[in-house]
Each structure stands twice: as structure tokens, then as C-alpha cells.
């Protein structure tokens, strides 16, 4: 039986062939990771495996055995208020970077990975990191603003304003 860590907790998965997305959602009840397309094309199912963003719909539990999986629920466990959120979650709330919100966990996870790799990404780096995510409500202007805000050096005031 493959073992893996999910949000810091050691788990034994019954089946190596079990899809990671189904395992997280239905076996562990971590439904914050969403199904959007099943083809790795929309990003709604993005989780971090050893810090790297991965499309959970395109991989199996066995393929990430021994790995450290973080889902959106693992960023700030139990957070109920703005202050308790992970900084990336917080900027999405502050910029109201959401409408229906279904795609947002995926955007949040890819943003967390991007900012770990590159704390001050250029607009092009942001677009590349989030380019294979779909928000059908079209909140990209706000998502860009949120990522910009999250990547500002500490102490500098938020720039806000347009999406450029």
C-alpha cells in the first residue's frame, strides 16, 4: 500500500492505481481540490507535491507515493478569519479575486508554488504560472492584482489600481 503525507498527516492509500483527485476528494473528504476537466487543462485540481504544483486529475496515488501532498485545506488549517489565512489566500480575499470560486483553490495553489520559487515574479512569470488555469467567470484582472499584492516586498503599500 502506498504511503504519502497529506497536509502533514501520514496516510496509507488502499490502491496505488487510485486517481489522486478521487482519493483526496472522496476517500479523505478534501473537497477543496476540484474537478474541472479531467484532462489537466483547467488547473482546478492543482495540489502541491513536494512543493511543486501538480494536476491531481492526471496522476495516481502510487505515482506520488512517499511524497508530501498539500491541498488548499492544508495551507492554513482551520482558518476562519482573514488574519488566519495563508498570505496567498488572504490577498485573494482582499482583492475579491473570485466569483463562483470553483477555480480559486487551484489558482491559490499555483500562486503559492510560484511565490515560493520566485517571490517577486514578473507579469510574464505570473501569466506563465497561471496560464493553464481557467476561470470561466473571468476574474483574471483580480487574480493578477492579488498575485501582485502577494509578491510585493513586505512593508510596501499595495499598489492596487489597474491590471497592467
Amino acid at each position, binding site marked *: 500500500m502506498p504511503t504519502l503525507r497529506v497536509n502533514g498527516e501520514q496516510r496509507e492509500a488502499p490502491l496505488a492505481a*487510485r*486517481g489522486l483527485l*478521487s482519493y483526496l*476528494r*472522496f476517500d*479523505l*473528504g*478534501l*473537497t*477543496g*481540490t*476540484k*474537478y*474541472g*476537466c*479531467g*484532462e489537466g*487543462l*483547467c488547473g*482546478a485540481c492543482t495540489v502541491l507535491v513536494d512543493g511543486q504544483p501538480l494536476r491531481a486529475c492526471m496522476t495516481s496515488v502510487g505515482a506520488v507515493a512517499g511524497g508530501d501532498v498539500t*491541498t*488548499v*485545506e492544508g*495551507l*492554513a488549517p482551520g*482558518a*476562519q*478569519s482573514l488574519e488566519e*489565512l495563508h498570505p496567498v*489566500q488572504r490577498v*485573494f*480575499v*482582499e482583492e*475579491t479575486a*473570485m*466569483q*463562483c*470560486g*470553483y477555480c480559486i*483553490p487551484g489558482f*491559490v495553489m499555483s500562486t503559492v508554488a510560484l511565490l515560493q520559487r520566485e517571490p517577486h515574479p514578473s507579469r510574464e512569470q*505570473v*501569466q506563465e504560472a497561471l*496560464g*493553464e*488555469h*481557467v*476561470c*470561466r*467567470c*473571468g*476574474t*483574471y*484582472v*483580480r*487574480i*493578477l492584482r492579488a498575485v501582485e499584492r502577494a509578491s510585493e516586498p513586505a512593508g510596501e503599500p499595495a499598489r492596487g489600481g*489597474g*491590471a*497592467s
Partner: protein
Amino acid sequence: MSAAGDEEGGAAGATEPAGGLEVGGLAVWGDVTFGIPDRLRASYRTTTYFNTTPDEQMQRWLVVRPDGRVAAFAGKVEYGQGVRSGFAMEVADELRVPLEAVEVTLGDTDLVPWDLGTFGSGSTAYVGLQLRRAAATARRALLDIAADRLDLPASDLECADGRVMAAGDPARSLGYGELVAGAPHREEIPDGDVDLLGPGEFTVIGSERGRVDAIGRVTGGAVYSRDVLLPGLLYAAVLRPPSLGAELRSLDASAAERLPGVVRVVHEAAVEGHSALAAVLAESDEQAELAASVVQAEWEERPAQPSRWDVPQILLDSARDTMVTQEAGDAGAGLAAAATTFEGTYYIPYISIAPMEPRAAVARWEAAHLTGGAAGEQERLTVWAGTQRPFGIRAELAEHFGIAEARVRVIVPEIGGGFGGKSIYPLAVEAARLARAAGRPVRVALSRVEETQHSTFRPAALISIRSGVDAEGRLAAWEFTASHAGERALIGRRGSESPYTAPHVRVAVSSADSPLPVGSYRSLGAAVNHFAREAHVDEITAALGVDPVEWRRRHLEDPRYHHVLDEAARRFGWQPAVSGARPDGRGVGVAVGIDVGSYVALCVAVEVQGQEVRVERVSAAIDCGLTVNPDGVVNQVEGGIMQGLGGTLTEAIEFEGGVVLNPGFARYRVPRIHNTPRIDVSIVGDPTVRSTGAGELGIVPIAAAVANAVYDATGQRIRELPLQRQLQPVAGA
């Protein structure tokens, strides 16, 4: 909060006892059809999927609890439009309580007032206003109770921050909770005018408050229909027809039934009024899918179905049920007498709604003894479904199973995008049929490909426009002839009327055969009709050598159009020029529009390179009357523009033989983050004018504004969407 094992699927307020028995507290009841015009009420009952009728009895809209918190109830649903936040703001302001004290329960048929459905931007316009009236009624009642307790005339009291206090003496005050503790009070919203706050008195309405439900959307705590997991749940894999209209002839499930985890294979033959249903039920989603893949099913497919290439001819040949939506003078004579005439035919293909969350439903039957029902009482059905029409789906379920609506509860969790498409929700009945057959709760969920193939589409349309101007360049005649696919005539008629002053006008809209099923999509036909009209106006102005903003100013009468047009042009920095005069790869375009009573103007700047159109900047100005939640409105307009760019530039459904050929995101290209222009949105509405919708404003004029900018950039007049398919490659700017 995880949804696993959460009995109530996370629906807010689900712990509330059904039926509205109040223990202490102040409950406000009222009519459910307040503000809905009679003509609409009539049409509600005559259009095919509006199968639900208003409850005649008073319904509970608002409760002030003994702990001082306020519960508001509405039959609308939240699919991203921010309606929960808007309602909370309206109630908080009108009742003078902190926003955090208000909880809004939506879309649970056991708890909320009856509602037709969430579409057509009716939430703020009607239900929001009714909630304000409920809150104002409660405020009045609280003042009266406090007057009694404080022994002061109500006119000497004021409400603030959840308390009633003596004017000028805040020390003499009582909290709302204290006022309503003890025996329950019941108030009714008066039929006539209610004393609502005026624009100068708002402290919450019109302010920047974000979303009241934002945190759950970034933590994974928000529960959507796909996330509803119940104890003992079975996962269904439904056998879907391989092509449109295919019928199941036979089924051999012997191999599937032997696979691990499979509980049973259901095959219900078609009976009168109900289609056949075949599905594998298993303990896990993957077991169900695997087993379904080895079921031997024989389908009888419809022969010789039209393909996408046939659609324009079908629209031309089968146009019928023509309705003249606007007429003045004699368009034919006006055209004959015009100094110059113009003619253009515009084609808009089918597009997919493609919400991020493919539809899902969970159904559970309970015997009476489990729900505390009386002996002999029948079972109850609960269905969780991400539909825009909970009461209509309840009616469908009740009718299907021949049980009273009171025994059916539809709970709408969060919805991952709807845009009109989730009014139709056959999965609710499917899940309930399977749960009944299995004796356990069942979950049905569509894959992305299924969501596209087994959905409705925005109707294709073919629109011909003939226009004429007099010797001074004034519009003399306007003839707009549209044929929209499908029987739902209201879709095509929406937004077909021209706002431009002309002595001779004829606008005629027809229905036509549709090879694909059609349904609602953001603004119905308005975005489609506006594309043709506003693109055609650009052709006139270019030929006349007139600035397109100036020409519109000269021909628009309604001052609300002028406000949005002037503001968009100002914010954009519009330089008067003739469109297409110097095609150099960069261009600007303008379009105006109206939908659900709200006004919009867009100015856009594009850069065209090769076959790619980059929309760089959009300035939008909108007027939706009183703006309750400005940031929510801006979010809607930005989103409508972004979504509209898909149908403008890249999206079109390809189909052949009843099969969609591009059902996934690989070949159906929707806008991504790198397609995002800079967008600025100005709100110019008059706060004394009643609120109208904002959800459609972005999408309505965007295709024309971009097409006009592409002409300005390239000299190519493209009359067919999506633009990038028709664009001849051009060298870059």
C-alpha cells in the same frame, strides 16, 4: 469544513427547523412576487421550463433572533454573482445592523420563499428590494416595541448598530435581541409603500465590502454540489447517448456486475414521459466508471444529423414565428429614399456555456420514521443540485415521482458557474431515480466532456441588416432581420431593438430549427443581436467618414446612453477619428448596449498580429440605477467582458452527426489569464433610480467593440464570430 459526512451539504442555515416556527425573535413575512410585473408573471407559466408557480401563502423573508443576529431568506442562488453579499448589505443597511450580523440563506426549498429562478438579473432588482422592505418592516416593528419599553414616542427613537436608542441620548438604548426575546413576534410586509432609506442615508449600500462568503472560497470550505458526500453514498456512472437523440435499445451488464465495488446496474426502460436510464452504481467513482466502460450497450442513433456547416442555411430556410419587436414608419420606403444604403449579414455560431463546475446531483430518500413523520406518512426526498431553479426542479421531482412538493426538498449548495445554463438540470431526477432503485443515496456527476455534449448551447443566429442615411448622414432607415436557432423565441428577441433615432425602423426576429439543444446563456440573445447592430453602425460611420462616438451621440436620445458613452470615451481617452482610416495593426472600437434595463458603453483598444487579436485595454461605463455593491458590479462587468472575449475571438462549437467535436478545453479555447486586457469600469448610475441588473453588461457589447477595433486596426470587416477564425493574417504593428 469538509463536506464528507456533512449531512446538510454545507447549505447555510440548514440547521434551521423547516417550516419557519419561530421561538422568540421577530419574523417578517411577505408576498413572493413583489415587484414582478404582471406580464412577466403570465409568461413565467407559459415558457417551457418555468413549471413552478408562486406559493399563494405569505413566506418568511427575515428573522431577528434573540441573540441579535439577523437571518434573511431568499430563493435565489449564488453562482458567483455575489448575490449573497448584496442581500446581506441591503438587509444590514435597512435594518441598521453590522454586516457581520446578517446571515443569508439561499436556494433551499424547505427554508426560503418561493422563487422562479436565478436569471435575468432579477435578484437585486426584485428580491433585494423585497428584502429591504422586509428589513424596513422589521425596523419599524423594533422601533414600536422599543417605544413601549422605553416609554418614548417612536419618533424620538433611532436605530443604529443593532440597537434602538433615544435620539440624542444613546445611553437609553435596547439591543434588537433584547427587544425580540420572549414571545415570538410576527410582522407582515405591508402591500403598499414601505419607508425605505433614501440614498443619502445609506451606510452599507454603495460601499466597498468585498464578499461575505469569500473565505470559504479560498480555503476549500465552500461546498459545491460536486462536494456533497453523504454516509452510504453510491457513485453512479450513467450511460450517456453517444450522439444527440440516440436511444438505448439493449444492455448487457453481466461483465460489469462482476467487477469489484459494483452494487448494481440499473436499467429503467423509457416509460411515458420519462426517458430510459441506465447506470452502474458502485462504492467508488472509479469502480462505477470502470464498470460502465464494460457494459455492452446498443444505441439507435438518429440518421443524418446536420453539421455545423449547415447551420446558416438552416437558419435562413426555417425562419418562422417572426415577431416584429420594433417598428416605425416604413423601413422599405425609407431605404428606397435613402441617399446611401448599407447592407451586412452577420453570423454567430453556437457557443458552449462551459461553467467550471460540471453539473452534479446527490439524492437521498428517507422513510417517514427517519424524518419524524407521522405513521403512514410517505417517504421524503432530498436532492442537492447546483441548479439555478430550485423550485422548478422540486416541481419536476414531485411530478416525476407523483408525490407532493412538500415531500421534496431541493438544496442548492454553492454553484461553480451557471450563466443561465444550470436552469436545466436533468441530473436531479436521474439521481433521485437511481437512489430510489438502490435504496441508498446516489451521486451523479458529469465529466467535462459530458457537461458540454449533454448541455444546451447559446443559439446560433443569422442577422441581416439594411440601413440607409440621408444626405446629411443621418440615419433614415433601419431594417434588422434576425433568425435565432431554437424554439425559445424570447432568447432571440432580447436586445434586438435599436436605440438609434430614425424615421423608418423595422426589427423582426424569427425562431428557426436548431440541430443542437439551445438554452439560456448570459444576456440570452442580447449579446448576439448587439454584435450585429453595433458592428453595422461602425460600417455606417466608417463609410460616412464620421467618428463612431460622435455618430452615436447624434442618434441616441436616452440621456442614460449619453452618460455611459461619454464616460467610457472620457476614461478611455477616445480621440475622434474615422474607423479604419489608417490600418496599422492597432485599433480602437466602441459599442453601446442595454440589457435588463441597464446601460453600458465600451471602448476597446486592440493590437492584431498574424491571426491573433490582443485586446489591450477596455474602458467600460455602466448605469444600473442604484448600485448596491459597487465592487460586485465591477467584478461582474470585468467578468462579462472576459467571458465575452471568448465568444468574440475563439469560441465556437463544432459538431457533426449529433456529436460535439470540441467538448473539452483543449479544442474549445476559452480566455486565459494572458488574454486579460486592462479593464476599467465606471459606474454612472443615478442612486435614486431603482436597481437593475449588472451581470450581462460586460458581455453585451464586447464582440462588436472588438470587431470594430479589429476593422480600425486592419481594414478587415469581419461579420462572423469568432473573429480570429475569419481574420486574414496581418503583419504586426
